[in-house]
C-alpha cells in the first residue's frame, strides 16, 4: 500500500485484509476483483463523500423528473387532444428506474458495515460474502452514476422543453409520455415492423457477409481469383450500394429480394476487402506447420486461413453492419412496404409525430441490440487475440 495512506485507508486496508483472508482463497491466488482492490489508489475522506453524492445523483434527478412531470404546470397554449392527454405512464416508467437505483443505493450502503464483526465469529464467511457483493455493487454504481445522471438530466430537460414550456415547436416534438403511449398503442404493428426489418437485415447481411467471405478468401488465396475480384472491388467498392436502389426498384421482381441484394452488396464490399487483406497477411509459417501435419487443402482454408484472418474478417463485418443498417432503412423508406423505415414514413405522412418518434427510438434500440449481439460474438470468437478485442 502507498506510504501516503491516511488512517482511514489504513483501517480500510486492514478490514479488506480480514475479508480477504477469511475467504477460503489460497494465500497467493487473488481473484480478479481482489487484485483490482489492491491496485486501486487509496481514497481520501472527501473523495469518498463525493463518491456517495455521485451514487445518489441519478436517483435524485429521476425523482426530479417525476416531480416536474406531476406538479409543474403544463404549457399554457397546449390544448390536449383526446388521445394525447398526459398519462401516468411516464411516472411509472421513470419510477421503475428510480426503484432499481434506490435498491442499488441500499445495497451499496450495506458495505459501510464492513468493519462490523460479530463476537466469537470473526470469520463469518456469509457476512463477508454479503459485504463483498455490496462493495461490488457500490463500485459498479459509482462507475455508471455519471452517465445515468446525464441521461436523466437530458430527459428532464426534454420534458421541460416540450410539455412544460413548449420551447420546442409543437406538435413536432411530442413529450416523452406521448411517445411512450404511442409505443403502447401501436405495439402490434411496431412489433411486426421490427420483425420484418430484422429478417430483411439478417438475410441481406448474412448473404452479403458470406459472399464477401468467399470472394475475399478466394482473392487472398489465389492470384488468379485476385486478378478478377480486384477490379470489381475497385470499381464497385467506393459507390454506396444505395445508388443502385432506383435500378433495383425497376428490375427486381420482388422488392424484398431487391432489398436483400442491396444490403448484401453493401456488406459484400468491406468483407471482401478485409478478408483478402487478412488472408494475404497470414504468416506463411502457419500454413507450413499445418502442412507438416498433412493438413488437406480444405483444412488449410477452413482451419487455418479463416481463423487466422478472423480479426480482419470481423473488421469488415463491423463496417458492413453499419452499411447494412443504413441500406435497410433506405430500402424500407423508398420502396419496401413493411418494416421500421416504412412505418416512420407512413406515420410522418399522417403527421403522427409521437408514433414517428416511437419508431425512431425503437430503431435505435433494435440496432443497438443487434450491434451488442454482434460485439458479443466477436469478443468470444476473437478471445485468443493478444491484448483482447478493441
Amino acid at each position, binding site marked *: 500500500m502507498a506510504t501516503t495512506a491516511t488512517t482511514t485507508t489504513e483501517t480500510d486496508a486492514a478490514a479488506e485484509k480480514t475479508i480477504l483472508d477469511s475467504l477460503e482463497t489460497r494465500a497467493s491466488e487473488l481473484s480478479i476483483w481482489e487484485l483490482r482492490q489492491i491496485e486501486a489508489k487509496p481514497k481520501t475522506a472527501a473523495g469518498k463523500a463525493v463518491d456517495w453524492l455521485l451514487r445518489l445523483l441519478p436517483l435524485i434527478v429521476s425523482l426530479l423528473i417525476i416531480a416536474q412531470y406531476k406538479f409543474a404546470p403544463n404549457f399554457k397554449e397546449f390544448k390536449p387532444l383526446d388521445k394525447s392527454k398526459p398519462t401516468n405512464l411516464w411516472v411509472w416508467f421513470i419510477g421503475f428506474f428510480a426503484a432499481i437505483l434506490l435498491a442499488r443505493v441500499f445495497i451499496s450502503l450495506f458495505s459501510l458495515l464492513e468493519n462490523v464483526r460479530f463476537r466469537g465469529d470473526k470469520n463469518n464467511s456469509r457476512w463477508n460474502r454479503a459485504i463483498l457483493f455490496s462493495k461490488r455493487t457500490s463500485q459498479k454504481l459509482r462507475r455508471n452514476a455519471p452517465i445515468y445522471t446525464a441521461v436523466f438530466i437530458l430527459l428532464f430537460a426534454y420534458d421541460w422543453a416540450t410539455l412544460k414550456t413548449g420551447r420546442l415547436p409543437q406538435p413536432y416534438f411530442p413529450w416523452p409520455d406521448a411517445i411512450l403511449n404511442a409505443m403502447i398503442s401501436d405495439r402490434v404493428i411496431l412489433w411486426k415492423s421490427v420483425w420484418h426489418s430484422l429478417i430483411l437485415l439478417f438475410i441481406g447481411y448474412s448473404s452479403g457477409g458470406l459472399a464477401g467471405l468467399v470472394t475475399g478468401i478466394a482473392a487472398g488465396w489465389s492470384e488468379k481469383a485476385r486478378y478478377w475480384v480486384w477490379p470489381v472491388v475497385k470499381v464497385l467498392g467506393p459507390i454506396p450500394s444505395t445508388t443502385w436502389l432506383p435500378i433495383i426498384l425497376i428490375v427486381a421482381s420482388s422488392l424484398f429480394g431487391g432489398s436483400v441484394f442491396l444490403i448484401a452488396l453493401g456488406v459484400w464490399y468491406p468483407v471482401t476487402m478485409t478478408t483478402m487483406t487478412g488472408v494475404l497477411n497470414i504468416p506463411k*509459417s*502457419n500454413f*507450413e*506447420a*499445418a*502442412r*507438416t*501435419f*498433412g*493438413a*488437406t487443402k480444405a*483444412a488449410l482454408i477452413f*482451419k*487455418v486461413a479463416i*481463423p*487466422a484472418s*478472423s480479426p480482419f474478417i470481423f473488421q469488415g463485418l463491423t463496417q458492413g453492419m453499419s452499411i447494412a443498417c443504413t441500406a435497410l432503412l433506405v430500402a424500407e423508406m423508398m420502396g419496401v412496404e413493411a418494416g421500421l423505415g416504412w412505418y416512420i414514413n407512413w406515420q410522418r405522412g399522417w403527421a403522427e409525430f409521437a408514433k414517428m418518434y416511437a419508431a425512431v427510438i425503437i430503431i435505435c434500440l433494435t440496432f443497438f441490440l443487434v450491434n451488442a449481439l454482434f460485439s458479443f460474438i466477436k469478443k468470444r470468437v476473437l*478471445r*485468443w*487475440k*493478444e491484448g483482447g478485442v478493441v
Partner: protein
Amino acid sequence: MSERGSIEVRNLNKTFARLDSGGTLCAIEDLSLTVEPGEFVSIVGTSGCGKSTLLRVIAGLEMPTRGEVLCGGVPVTGTNPDRGLVFQEHTLFPWLTVRRNIIFALKSSKRLGANRAAVDTLIGKAGLSEFAGSYPHQLSGGMRQRASLIRSLAVSPDVLLLDEPLGALDSFTRMTLQDEIIRLWQERGNTMVLITHDVDEAVYLSQRIVVMSPRPGRVTEVVDVPMSYPRNRGSSDFTELRVKLLTALNFASEVEQEYNL
C-alpha cells in the same frame, strides 16, 4: 535402405532467388547425407549456413533445385505427417489453445483416434498441464517452444526434424528436456535430426554430428559419438569430443571468412 525412417540426401543443391538484388543465393551446394532409421543425428554450423533450409527440404516444404531427397526409400515430393518438423520459431496457432493445437495436428494427420488419450500425458510431460487451456500468447517463450515440440511429437512421426527446439530455454530446463527427448526417442525408436547451436547439446544427444560450413552450405565433417546413453557431461570422452567439434566449427567459420573476402 528402404526402411521406414531412413533419410537419403543425394547431391542436394538449393538456390533461392534474391528478390532484393535480382540475383540468386546458393544456400546448399552438393550436399549428400545418409541417416539410418532410428538414428539420432545432430547438425551444427554457424548461423546462415543452410541448416534450416536443409531441414525444410527434407520435410518437403522446399523443393530441391538439384539433387533429390529420399525418405524411407521414397522421393520426397511434399509434406507428410511421417516427417515432423519443429520450427526454429514456435509455430503454434495463436487462435487455438495448447490442447487444441495438439488435437489439430492429430486430426490433420488422421491419427486422433489412437492418440487422444496421450494428449494430456504429453502435455503433462512438458510441464504444461496447468496451461493446456491457455492460448499461445499467454505462455512464456520457453513454454511455447515446449508446446510446439510436443505438438509434433503427438503425431508420432517416423522422422522428427528439430530446428533448435530448445533454443529459447534456460540451461536447467534445457537439460531436463534433453533427457526427455532421449527418453522419447529410445521409447519410440524414430529417426531424429536435430539442429543446434550448442555443441554440448549435440554431443549429449546424438550418435552422429554433422558439421556444416556456410555459403554455400556444405558438410565439412561428420563426427561419430561412440558413447552409450545416458551420457556424463563431465567425462573425459565428452570433453574431448567437444573440443574436436569446436575445432571443426572453427575451421568451418574460417572457410566462411575466405568466402567473404
